[in-house]
């Protein structure tokens, strides 16, 4: 999860997010290099003592500063497109979960084998046990097996919401009357937090998403327990 005064991305918990982190590093490095060069040129021009009054044009530099940006743009576009196509690859999910957005909570349905559904409300600040995260904890977490491809189908029951988890690189709009699909693989066990990412009313900031990735045996135990409780 995020820590206070964090500037960069959260540590990746899925292979796709790792790719996005590396791409961001690449693009940001290009941006930093160009900005440094431009800043240097500006300073050099401003502090120069002499003026050349007879500069009219220059074909050579015009060619350079047209071709070089084109090359740089290609160098940015190629990895970007690669990741874009990677996201859309056909994979074979082991599990399908439905995440439905409501005002102001999420509900999850695991209907592959048995009928399992539950609501996930934010834990109010006064009910937190010491050490829990304010505005991020929920009463029921979406538990998934680790290292398995998961398909999540996202929709909404009333207004627009958005199901987002930064550590997994997932953000999908929940549109009423529409079913959106995303797939991901969680690389390591842990608890991953996200928050609703589309304005949906008074408690838009208070409907978090909590995903808990556990080994398969633990997931099976959990789902049996949940079905019994219902």
């Amino acid at each position, binding site marked *: 999860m995020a*820590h206070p005064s964090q500037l960069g991305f959260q540590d990746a918990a899925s292979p796709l997010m790792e790719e996005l982190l590396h791409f961001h590093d690449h693009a940001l490095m290009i941006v930093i290099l160009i900005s440094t060069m431009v800043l240097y040129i500006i300073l050099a021009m401003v502090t120069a003592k002499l003026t050349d009054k007879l500069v009219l044009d220059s074909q050579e530099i015009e060619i350079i500063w047209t071709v070089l940006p084109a090359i740089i743009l290609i160098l940015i576009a190629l990895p970007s497109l690669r990741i874009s196509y990677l996201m859309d690859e056909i994979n074979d999910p082991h599990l399908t979960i439905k995440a439905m957005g409501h005002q102001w909570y999420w509900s999850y349905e695991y209907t592959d084998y048995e009928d399992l559904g539950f609501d996930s409300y934010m834990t109010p600040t006064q009910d937190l046990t*010491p*050490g829990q995260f304010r505005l991020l904890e929920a009463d029921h977490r979406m538990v998934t097996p680790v290292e398995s491809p998961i398909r999540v189908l996202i929709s909404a029951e009333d207004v627009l919401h958005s199901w987002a988890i930064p550590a997994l690189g997932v953000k999908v709009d929940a549109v009423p009357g529409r079913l959106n699909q995303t797939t991901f693989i969680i690389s390591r066990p842990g608890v991953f937090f996200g928050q609703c990412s589309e304005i949906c009313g008074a408690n838009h900031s208070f409907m978090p998403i909590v995903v808990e990735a556990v080994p398969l045996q633990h997931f099976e135990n959990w789902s049996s327990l949940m079905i019994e409780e219902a």
Partner: protein
Amino acid sequence: MLHLTAGRVGSLLARRATAALTNSSVRMASHGHDVAEMVDMSQPLYVDRVDIPLPDRPYKDTLSPAEESLKQKEKGPWSQLSKEEKLALYRLKFCQTFPEMQEPSAEWKTVLGGIFIFLGLTGLVVWWQKVYVYPARPRTFDDDWQAKQKCIDTVCHDRSHGLWLLFLSFSRGLAKNNHEEVILLYTQIKLEVVGFF
């Protein structure tokens, strides 16, 4: 950068010369356009600029009789001019010397002062908000609460804060019970995360 060889310099100068000598109206006329004659109607200007060392006209145009006689004396050998006369002749032709043109102004003090004034006003506004607008600080920001958060090391607290919390939990203020609890929690997390592999 491009190495200026003699050949390159020659071609550059030739291009400059042709551009200067044939103005655009001549070039247009030679390519079949009907172009009116271009007349320069600008007035000669006096400017004090570093990149225009010899302006179009002298600084003082209308001269008093004393200055007129000095100008006549200038037409003779210059070794007969005294130092004061040479300086007077310079001041007739030019308003400022190069060092006078280039001396810095005190404008930066005004600019910096204005910036600090606005920063101060902003600070006042921020302080007023802290006193009259913001609600109470949530208890989740307290040190002992943060020490109990799982992953107390640098994973979910930034580097310096994580180390500070570790130090706190092992030292004074958080009560003996707390720090044992924290160590237990820490070990538990390590087992949960690492133990399955």
